[in-house]
């Protein structure tokens, strides 16, 4: 079977299936061939679900042959981050502690994708339990950046970003707690969306920090990301934070005209030395282009920006220390025996968790422990309210806020792994969005001058303004004409 390069967007797949120039099976085989050819070098997949995907593609082809109606994502090949459950497949979370765990159920997003006839091809690599910014914290292997395999793809959803960048799947799913969709999207030159908190059900997502976690899509263009989000979003009673507000207009997304838009640049993000010069120059060039297209670009202030990372690194580890208490070796996964029940828990968790996960459990347990709760967790929750207030005020003055996604382009494998604090500090532009619960998209805006690696532009919007945000992103996409990777 040959590789078919004309079916790498949802629109192209629709056209090919309706015109009969491709079948769901042939599109899937083309992706499987690319995985065989390229993924030994990139390592984006933990599990490739060949047989399951082939069965589903064949069933879809039968349905098409019979002339039956097909779903909105018919034949679209999707890769899923391996912290999202698919019935009958392993869910590893990139951890040894889930050794031999086979999911007995489907996540809400998996049910929704498959109801619309998407073909799930496999499960992608991640930092263990989504804790990290490079995918180097996976217990299995690091994923490489398809643009330059000496560099990280970002994280924690590095496998999902790399898979889409290398065309191993048409679109993919990630989860974003402090930037885990947007940062790898920026590093890999693809579109990544962190939707409004509450717009996508997390039922079946392995919880990391529940007040921050959100599932969202990766795609090669804004239209495809919007089409996937339209399927993912909507109320689900199995996630108590799932909102009844719907996101209408994501299918056949309309461009939001740039002329007359009020665009805010947070002055606290653009301070001297905050980002690498090559990132600053790519972002500034894009902002000038937006301004020339008729937008009113103005400086705004998000005064609590400097406290965002500290707030996050109290709240996220605290919630993680509680969420990860369930991994005790009793009901599933790795189990090491100790001299009693408590000892068995300790042995299991010592053997099963990697260093970053242990570090965050320790940090969270400390912050929640008696005598420290007020100074750390309660203080962080209050600062979080102030960060949210900063955004609320800013969105009274502007339609969208624009910034870089990251402080640098993709760094080299091994460069930051021994210094956790420096790795944390690099999340400064993405974290405030999660703290406030607002939506944001990472849009590739160019290649950096010196490294030649992609740079991402972050567009932030107010709660539940995801559709207009993506409509604006689509207009910017037209202006920047980013060339996706060809390999």
């Amino acid at each position, binding site marked *: 079977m040959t590789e078919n390069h004309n079916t790498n967007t949802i629109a192209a797949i629709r056209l090919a299936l309706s015109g009969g120039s491709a079948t769901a099976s042939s599109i899937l085989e083309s992706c499987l061939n690319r995985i065989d050819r390229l993924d030994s070098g990139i390592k984006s997949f933990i599990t490739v679900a060949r047989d399951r995907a082939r069965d589903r593609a064949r069933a879809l082809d039968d349905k098409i042959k019979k002339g039956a109606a097909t779903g909105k994502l018919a034949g679209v090949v999707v890769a899923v981050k391996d912290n999202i459950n698919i019935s009958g497949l392993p869910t590893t979370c990139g951890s040894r502690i889930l050794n031999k765990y086979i999911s007995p159920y489907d996540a809400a997003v998996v049910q929704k994708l498959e109801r619309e006839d998407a073909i799930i091809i496999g499960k992608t690599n991640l930092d263990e339990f989504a804790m990290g910014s490079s995918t180097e914290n996976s217990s299995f292997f690091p994923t490489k950046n398809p643009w330059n395999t000496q560099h990280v793809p970002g994280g924690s959803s590095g496998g999902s970003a790399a898979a889409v960048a290398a065309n191993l799947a048409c679109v993919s799913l990630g989860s974003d707690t402090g930037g885990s969709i947007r940062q790898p999207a920026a590093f890999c030159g693809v579109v990544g969306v962190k939707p409004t908190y509450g717009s996508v059900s997390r039922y079946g997502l392995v919880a990391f920090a529940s007040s921050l976690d959100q599932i969202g899509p990766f795609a090669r263009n804004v239209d495809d990301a919007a089409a996937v989000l339209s399927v993912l979003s909507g109320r689900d009673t199995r996630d108590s934070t799932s909102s*009844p507000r719907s996101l209408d207009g994501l299918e056949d997304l309309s461009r939001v005209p740039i002329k007359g838009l009020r665009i805010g640049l947070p002055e606290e993000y653009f301070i001297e030395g905050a980002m690498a010069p090559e990132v600053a120059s790519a972002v500034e060039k894009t902002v000038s282009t937006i301004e020339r297209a008729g937008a009113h670009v103005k400086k705004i202030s998000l005064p609590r920006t400097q*406290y965002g990372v500290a*707030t996050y690194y*109290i709240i996220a580890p605290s919630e993680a*220390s509680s969420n990860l208490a369930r991994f005790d070796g009793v009901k*599933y996964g790795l189990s090491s025996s100790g001299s009693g029940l408590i000892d068995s828990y300790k042995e299991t968790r010592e053997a099963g968790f990697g*260093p970053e996960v242990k570090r965050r459990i320790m940090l969270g*347990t400390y912050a929640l422990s008696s005598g420290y709760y007020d100074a750390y967790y309660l*203080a962080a929750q209050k600062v979080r309210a102030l960060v949210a207030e900063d955004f609320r005020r800013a969105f009274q003055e502007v339609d969208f806020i624009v910034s870089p996604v990251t402080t640098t382009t993709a760094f080299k494998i091994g460069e930051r792994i021994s210094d956790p604090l420096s790795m944390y500090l690099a999340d400064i532009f993405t974290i405030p969005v999660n703290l406030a619960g607002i939506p944001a998209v990472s849009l590739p805006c160019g290649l950096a001058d010196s490294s030649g690696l992609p740079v991402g532009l972050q567009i932030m919007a107010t709660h539940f303004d995801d559709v207009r945000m993506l409509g604006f992103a689509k207009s910017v996409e037209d202006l920047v004409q980013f060339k996706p990777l060809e390999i």
Partner: protein
Amino acid sequence: MDKKITPREIRHIAHLARLRLTDDEVELFSSQLDGILGYVGHLGELDLKNVRNLSVGPSSPSGGENMLRRDEAAPSPSRGALLDNAPSRSGDYFKVKKVIE
């Protein structure tokens, strides 16, 4: 919040977190957590007396509404599939170490 975190304190936290750390890990985490806690301690600079906690009220990430559902019976994963994941079982029971001596 500028006192050093001691190895003794690290061992206590590890016990609360149900982690058996090696001596090397105790040493590593003492210094790393010191650095991280020193950094997050900057929040102490802010006057937060009159600020409300975000986890409750209308400014919470999900809009502050309690999203309730009807308590209705619905299919759940099969008992067999759940038990198949058990590292150690006895018939239809999860097997654990003796709890009461």
